[in-house]
């Protein structure tokens, strides 16, 4: 083994990552176990938080602001929207903290640093899965009580669409995590970006509501939009499914990942000196 001042920028040692698979699993396991330790409601919090948000959304956006949901029961519309968005946002936040929040461990021992963003993306799957289960519970309830719901065949793409979102968040998060090791400004900026980003993504309203052409195009340029729309299309039958725009999202994701990996590799050797 040779230790040099700099690594190749696009290098990713899969064999080494595979060797640390047990550590990966233990980190994921640890995050699950310790998430709600010493709380009375424990894992119930995974359910309470999304339910609370849905109640607020239904009241504020549906009841007060009268934002349409394209004929879909608002509860389903919001639940799906906030689960998917919530997964993206939490992946982005936790990957962007990879270096700073693990500085203690990184400073004492070596393992492939990229495992931490991977852990973050995996750990967030748990709360997403629970929210999705709530979504399906409501879905069955609405279907049984006679609401007309359409599922499109594209639903088989659902796991891939989620993977696309996870990778997008990871690429973007890695860029931020690499830049925040020295300058913490971006960490503060990212929190603001995420809280504003949700408004240019069709999470709490359908894209069809945006009738201004320029605005519509601008919103579609947001790489999360096509994925969000495709998910809504396949599960709820509303929104649009466009291979072209999904291809665009995939391309942006690829660029983010490559760029993120380059920055990550550049920073990981020296970040302990500046963190």
């Amino acid at each position, binding site marked *: *083994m*040779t*230790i*040099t*001042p*700099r690594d190749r920028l696009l290098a990713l040692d899969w064999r080494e990552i595979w*060797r*640390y698979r*047990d*550590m990966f*699993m*233990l*980190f994921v396991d*640890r995050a699950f*176990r*310790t998430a709600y*330790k*010493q709380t009375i409601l424990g894992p119930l919090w995974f359910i309470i938080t999304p339910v609370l948000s849905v109640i607020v959304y239904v009241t504020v956006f549906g009841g007060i602001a009268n934002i349409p949901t394209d004929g879909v029961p608002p509860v389903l519309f919001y639940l799906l929207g906030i689960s998917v968005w919530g997964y993206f946002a939490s992946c982005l936040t936790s990957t962007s903290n990879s270096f700073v929040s693990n500085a*203690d*461990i*990184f*400073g*004492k*021992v*070596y*393992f492939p640093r990229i495992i931490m963003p991977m852990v973050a993306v995996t750990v967030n799957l748990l709360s997403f899965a629970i929210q999705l289960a709530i979504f399906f519970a409501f879905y069955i309830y609405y279907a049984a009580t006679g609401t007309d719901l359409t599922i499109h065949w594209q639903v088989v793409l659902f796991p891939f669409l989620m993977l696309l979102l996870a990778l997008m968040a990871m690429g973007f998060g890695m860029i931020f995590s690499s830049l925040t090791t*020295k*300058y913490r400004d971006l960490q503060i900026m990212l929190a603001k970006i995420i809280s504003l980003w949700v408004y240019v993504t069709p999470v709490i309203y359908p894209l069809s509501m945006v009738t201004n052409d320029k605005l519509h195009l601008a919103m579609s340029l947001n790489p999360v939009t096509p994925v969000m729309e495709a998910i809504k299309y396949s599960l709820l039958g509303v929104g649009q499914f466009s291979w072209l725009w999904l291809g665009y999202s995939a391309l942006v994701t690829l660029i983010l990942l490559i760029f993120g990996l380059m920055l990550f590799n550049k920073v990981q*050797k*020296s970040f*302990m*000196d*500046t963190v």
Partner: protein
Amino acid sequence: MTAIEFNHVSKQYRLGLVSTKTLSHDIRRWWLTSIMRQEDPYLKIGETNDRATKGNSEYVWALRDIDFKVEQGDVVGIIGKNGAGKSTLLKLLSRVTGPTTGTIRAHGRIGSLLEVGTGFHSEMTGRENIYMNGAILGMTKAEIDRKLDEIIDFSGCERYIDTPVKRYSSGMTVRLGFAVAAFLEPEILVVDEVLAVGDAEFQKKAIGKMKDVSQGQGRTVLFVSHNMTSVKQLCKHGILLENGQVSFMGTAEDTIGKYLAVNLEDIDKPLAERTDRRGDGRVRFTNVLFRNAKGDVVTEAFVGTPLTIEMYFDINDPSVDLSKAIMACGLSDSYGMSVANWISDEIEHDFSNLKDEKKIVLHIPALNLRPQTYNFGVQLSIGSTSPKDWCDEIGPISQLTILNDSIFTPGVNLKDCRGHQALVPARYL
């Protein structure tokens, strides 16, 4: 066969805070190296890392041009003063941070132990933490499964193994952490001063385990410590670092000798000219005198006799509040182990006139220490004894030789032996 090879390895650090100045340096560096294809301008301006002197550059070389080889199966102790670059060297080898220039070649898996219990989570049980810590150190789950019983047994924490670590005493946490690391089986083991923690019984156990690991199984070990006794016990060879450079390499014994000699070289200089001191300099010691019972200035005294130590100082900052001064001085043996310490906030004293007298006097009624040569060191701080409040601190200032005599039974001299320095008056009945 060579196990580890350092090829002209240097490591530069930037001092001070991260600010817009850092940003402008970063931009300039990027412009020159990436666009103009020139050399990094900041690599030229670094200074030697001497922590005691104030430098002009904010860039320092923590390590400079380190070049050595370690044979497979060798146990090498790395010694040097604080800030000589020992830990930086281990960090580079364990890949926690990368070198600025140069390359390191290593043959075999490297296991590093820069801290015990890395990745311990206070909410998880001892058993869960063994797995976590083991995995972080590079073990697979199967490996840990196989060694689990031995690890628990070695740690001596069996009763607590299914209790969250936050209920552990700090000593138990250390034991558990070391136990995991002790069963690590890399070809190259890198150990930082981790043996300095835990109680005496545990330290003995840890040293014993380290001996097994390094001697029995042909593994290469790099070991950093300030404790010359354990370096001597464990290591075959030594590397002496001074201001980020290798100043001596040889057998462990020779290297320790060189290190102690370096420490003592400074003693011959007048106290006021010494630069190997710490503290902010509001007050600087200028002279120290030992006086025997008759009041003569001495460097040797008989065991059991009284001794008075006079410590003279200059005040460089007139605003300094000497009424809050805390004086600490003490004797340490030739291995650097402290054997006696007199700290003024534990001892009755009158410091009301320090500003005028510019001297502190300590009276020892009886030198009950085994005949040997001891090093005397001082430290003066204001308000608290934490390093930020230090005014002046110097390791060995001068030597005091205690001469053999009879103190327990008239006419029976003391034995000449290592250790057992405290001579507490007693009688067998």
